[in-house]
């Protein structure tokens, strides 16, 4: 029964409750509801046809495909491990809708890791770290012949760095320090890695398996994962937008992250050359769309120099390859 007479309530008791009508009608809570409605399970997928297809492709195709899937196998485990600071920060910022949504986000990342673990186990026959590590493409090997750009392993270097900063701010910082650290973490995790860097890789796998007319469950898994990623990315960019509206100086944190790791975006995706027959230009150009979209979602101005460099045909080194 609703009542409007609240004057006798103890504030410390009221503080034990977090749901509000405004919250459950808001965009973040809607993402939580959608995540619950659209739940899918790896156990429902059948890997039999993919295992048959694996037996029919040649060694070059196997090497090319594994280059992509093994990076996803490592990446999904890493993003699962690195998400805890975001959950802690949501609680510290007293945003319960963010907390409930990030709970689904974390579960989904664990499920994505499970999908790649199962695919490699059932299709390739590889599961132990030593078995899959031999196929991992190392990005640190990259050499840009012009010497202008450095390439890092953003997923395995930047996320732990920004995650630790966010966790430390959450434990001991002011609200503004938590918000600033949240922006940097989300810019790296949701906008840069999930929202720009990885998007061409999804399409490369979907295009490759479609053109080979093979690996239907790998393709299905990528499509299911993408549905989840759409919520993850837009949650992060929406959260950034809210915080930047509160303090416009936070925008510089986003640009700082993209600037530090720009070499990873302006370089060509290594899988393009690992998988024969793909349209190299398509995957490079689409990064501009994804970068502009992330900026638009966050309500910030894109860095035009980054866009010019992405489409500059003279910048053609390949990430993960020693000579461009």
């Amino acid at each position, binding site marked *: 029964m609703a009542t409007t007479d609240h004057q006798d309530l103890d504030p410390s008791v009221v503080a034990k409750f977090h749901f509000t009508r405004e919250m459950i009608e808001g965009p973040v809570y809607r993402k939580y509801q959608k995540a619950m409605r659209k739940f899918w399970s790896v156990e429902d997928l059948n890997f039999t046809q993919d295992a048959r297809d694996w037996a029919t492709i040649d060694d070059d195709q196997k090497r090319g495909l594994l280059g992509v899937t093994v990076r996803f196998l490592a990446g999904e485990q890493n993003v699962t491990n690195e998400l805890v600071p975001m959950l802690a920060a949501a609680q510290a910022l007293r945003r319960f809708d963010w907390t409930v949504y990030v709970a689904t986000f974390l579960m989904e990342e664990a499920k994505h890791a499970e999908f790649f673990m199962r695919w490699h186990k059932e299709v390739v026959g590889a599961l132990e770290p030593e078995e899959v590590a031999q196929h991992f493409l190392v990005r640190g090997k990259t050499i840009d012949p012009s010497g202008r750009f450095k390439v890092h392993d953003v997923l395995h270097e930047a996320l732990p760095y920004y995650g630790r900063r966010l966790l430390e701010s959450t434990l001991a910082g002011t609200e503004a320090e938590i918000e600033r650290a949240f922006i940097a973490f989300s810019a790296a995790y949701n906008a840069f890695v999930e929202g720009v860097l990885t998007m061409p890789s999804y399409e490369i796998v979907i295009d490759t398996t479609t053109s080979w007319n093979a690996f239907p469950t790998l393709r299905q898994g990528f499509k299911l994962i993408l549905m989840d990623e759409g919520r993850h990315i837009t949650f992060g960019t*929406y959260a950034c937008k809210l915080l930047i509206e509160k303090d416009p100086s936070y925008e510089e944190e986003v640009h700082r992250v993209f600037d530090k790791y720009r070499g990873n975006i302006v370089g060509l995706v290594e899988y393009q050359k690992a998988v024969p027959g793909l349209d190299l230009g398509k995957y490079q150009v689409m990064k501009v769309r994804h970068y502009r979209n992330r900026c638009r979602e966050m309500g910030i101005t894109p860095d035009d120099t980054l866009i010019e460099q992405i489409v500059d045909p003279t910048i053609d080194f390949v990430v993960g390859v020693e000579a461009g």
Partner: protein
Amino acid sequence: MTEGAKRWTCVEAGCSYELVAADVPSAIQGAQRHIAEAHGSFELEEMIEDVLEDVPESEAGSWSQPTP
């Protein structure tokens, strides 16, 4: 997201395609069709929905099918 007509603009490099649709589902469908046909790619539902702009009723009356 409020009800009513919506505008979506493509931000692919070199593309200025813009569409105005009667509602959110139509805008999502139109945007996804454009990305598939013009760029051989795809755009996720949330990424379209989150950047839709409200269109004033006067403008929405002249519902437009844009040019690529």
